[in-house]
């Protein structure tokens, strides 16, 4: 156990649901997206914006649910589904309506994303891109902050309008495939969806391409200096400056992303260290290890798997084959969209919120309201709005108190569930099937030398475990290491080209980590619940991605 873990204690008693109405609900900590204690501004973003978007999504598709409730308890984020108020018959009828509603959307995924949702998202991103934050007057900035929250509400409504049918398309294709081929393994259906061009893969490939453009002098700098010193060293030579320009272009195009779904970590545009660390790895690698090679192999394997499935269905009734083809096409679209929506919505909207809040923080720091721009994240949106409108307030004590609270919360291990634990088995509907594949189902280990989770991506490999809690720690990763993390987030994915495998505490076969591991062709075991607490940094482990087992060697 790491020293940090040793200090942690499970203190369930301190996790109290303040509202009595909450006690009847089943609360789960969303460790996959928000493993760390939250600042007040992040709590507001999650409860107000993301929770709002999810509730909008389930309403948009008529799901038989009353909504979703989000609470921050001791800094940790919990969410609960509010059951629909109705008789079992009414709920079943609503379930049928929801299924029809989501199937209609699955049938027109590309149109929904490329013609409706993405253009509207781009319009909002354009609004943020074109606003001159530094040049804005105080009043204009205050209005911009308010409008940013309004637009975020809409962007996250769109997020759930696309991810629900997008992921359900993948999940239901998996169901269909395993129904047609009952002997198929857990990951087999996903082979028909791999190697499709998407932005997650493009971010890694474009960085590789950039690494190939590093000439001798640039390679020398990259290979002999710490990442933090690289920009200054490059700036010293003309060849280096030319490369820096290309690096800036890369970061400008792909770098509106930070770490997980947090606003407190810097984007690559602010601090390109994670990008430079990957370049330092990539320049040492032979051309044969290009991510493109992996993608092409995945595409060939995909085409082979599709041809094989078609052959096996040759004499099947046309409605069955037609459904297979339609669901395959939808699942392929869903897979690309499940990646690309992260790029445009999750990463960019959070990047812009951070940028707007930081600018407001700078103004408040100038006023002396807070000490540093970063302190703005310790305020609530209301406190920020008030402070912008009436300079002269002093919120130092408030910020100090909240920073201290977060430091304290970091030492606590939050209980994974709270409230009324359900006794009935989960219903067998498309939404629940998807949720279980996204979140994973905990598995008990068979002995103390192993950890069990969901099969995430095929293959067996051995390597050195690296416990990674944020992308800022990625400098410790050496080629062939295995990431062991609570969760991984889209900005981490270029790392997948460096490591031999990945293991997470959270998520299922449809989690982002598992999807990307399959794209990069590395084994993954996800949703172990305990890997980061049981496995120590530096230990040799063996990851069996098909069985969902990690062995401590």
């Amino acid at each position, binding site marked *: 156990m790491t020293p940090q873990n040793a200090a942690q204690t499970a203190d369930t008693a301190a996790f109290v649901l303040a509202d009595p109405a909450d006690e009847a609900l089943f609360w789960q900590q969303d460790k996959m997206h928000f493993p760390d204690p939250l600042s007040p501004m992040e709590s507001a973003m999650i409860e107000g914006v993301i929770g709002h978007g999810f509730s909008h999504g389930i309403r948009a598709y008529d799901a038989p649910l009353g909504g979703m409730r989000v609470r921050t308890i001791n800094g940790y984020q919990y969410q609960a589904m509010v059951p629909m108020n109705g008789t079992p018959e009414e709920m079943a009828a609503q379930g049928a309506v929801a299924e029809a509603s989501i199937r209609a959307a699955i049938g027109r995924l590309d149109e929904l994303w490329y013609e409706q949702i993405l253009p509207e998202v781009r319009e909002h991103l354009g609004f943020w891109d074109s606003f001159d934050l530094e040049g804005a007057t105080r009043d204009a900035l205050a209005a911009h902050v308010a409008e940013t929250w309004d637009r975020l509400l809409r962007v996250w409504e769109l997020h759930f309008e696309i991810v629900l049918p997008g992921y359900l398309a993948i999940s*239901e294709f998996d*169901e*269909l*495939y*395993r*129904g*047609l081929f*009952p002997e198929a393994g857990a990951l087999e259906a996903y082979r028909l969806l791999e190697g499709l061009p998407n932005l997650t893969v493009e971010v890694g490939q474009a960085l590789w391409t950039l690494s190939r453009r590093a000439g001798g002098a640039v390679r020398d700098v990259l290979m002999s200096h710490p990442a933090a010193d690289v920009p200054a060293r490059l700036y010293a030579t003309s060849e280096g400056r030319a490369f820096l320009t290309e690096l800036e272009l890369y970061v400008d195009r792909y770098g509106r992303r930070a770490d997980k779904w947090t606003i407190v970590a810097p984007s690559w545009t602010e601090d390109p260290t994670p990008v430079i660390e990957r370049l330092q790895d990539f320049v040492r690698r032979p051309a044969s290890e290009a991510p493109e090679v992996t993608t092409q192999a995945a595409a060939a394997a995909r085409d082979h798997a599709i041809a094989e499935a078609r052959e096996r269905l040759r*004499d*099947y*009734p*046309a*409605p*069955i084959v037609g*459904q297979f083809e339609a*669901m395959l096409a939808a699942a392929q679209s869903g897979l690309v969209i499940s990646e690309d929506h992260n790029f445009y919505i999750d990463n960019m909207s959070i990047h812009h919120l951070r940028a707007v809040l930081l600018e407001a923080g700078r103004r408040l720091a100038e006023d002396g309201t807070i000490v540093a721009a970063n302190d703005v994240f310790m305020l609530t949106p209301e406190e920020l709005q008030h402070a912008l409108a009436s300079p002269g307030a002093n919120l130092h004590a408030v910020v100090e108190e909240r920073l201290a609270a977060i430091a304290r919360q970091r030492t606590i291990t939050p209980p994974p569930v709270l409230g009324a634990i359900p006794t009935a088995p989960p219903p067998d509907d498309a939404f629940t099937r998807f949720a279980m594949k996204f979140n994973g189902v905990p598995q008990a280990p068979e002995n103390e030398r192993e950890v069990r989770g969901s099969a995430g991506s095929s293959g067996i490999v051995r390597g050195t475990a690296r416990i990674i809690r944020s992308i800022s720690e990625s400098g410790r990763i050496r080629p062939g290491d295995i990431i062991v993390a609570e969760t991984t987030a889209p900005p981490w994915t270029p790392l997948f080209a460096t490591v031999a495998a990945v293991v997470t505490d959270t998520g299922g076969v449809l989690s982002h980590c598992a999807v990307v591991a399959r794209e990069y062709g590395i084994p993954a075991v996800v949703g172990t619940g305990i890997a980061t607490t049981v496995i120590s940094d530096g230990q040799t482990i063996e990851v069996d991605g098909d069985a969902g087992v990690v062995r401590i060697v």
Partner: protein
Amino acid sequence: MTTALLSPPTSPAASPPILWFEDAAAADPAHAGGKAAALATLACRLPVPDGFVVAGTPDDATVEEAYVRLAERAGTDEPLVAVRSSAADEDGLASSFAGQHETILGVRGIDQVLDAIAACRASAHTERALHYRRANGLARPSGPLPVLVQLLVPADAAAVVFSVSPVMAGGMAREVLVNAAFGLGESIVGGTVTPDEWALDRPSLHITRRTISDKRRMTVRAPGGSREVDVPAPLRRLPSISDEQARAAARLAIDLERELGFAVDLELAWTGDDLHLLQCRPITTLAQEAA
């Protein structure tokens, strides 16, 4: 019109050992058996899959010649065929013989065809078939059992249609029943699937009831025959045919009933939108009650 279904078996005069549907003798149950004669009668104007009857005991070369001709008529090499028994008194008004004699699906190539014909003939003498005959007061089979060799339709969905609902035979015989499922009809006939069911008012053909069931199994063509497989969960509750197809099936049953003069039990299949008539026989339970 005279129909094979109504004509009692007559003593067979000499006829060629291979009968095509368009041959006059094919419409005579005494030569072609009840099942094949019924289809031969209808084949000239309804979409009955092409085929021939092995009526006598031709040598292998003659059967091969017929199979090659069937291939030419179908425009494919070595077509997949269904080989079914067609006893003289089979599918007659008195008894249907449903399931008592062998049916072999997905037969391809002359060797398989010859084997299937032999197997069908052997089935006429199985204990089960003979018991059925005794129980229904039928004579032991005399002479070679006629065998029907017919193109196997690549069925997307199949249906069994009753022009009069057999369960309401007492009086409210105002409904046509259509039972349909995915794939070939064997899973419906064999009772391994709970089919979708349409009840249609007659003569208006207004749909009075539609039950889309949880269809867990289907029969599909497979190399060397057919096999029953699971229907994937997301598809089990999809309708196997459209309301329009159900209505067309019901219309055909009513037309045939009017024409033949007795309530009919049809077996149908669809390839895309193309309807095929695979079997037409009297509803024997009704006929017996009427008698």
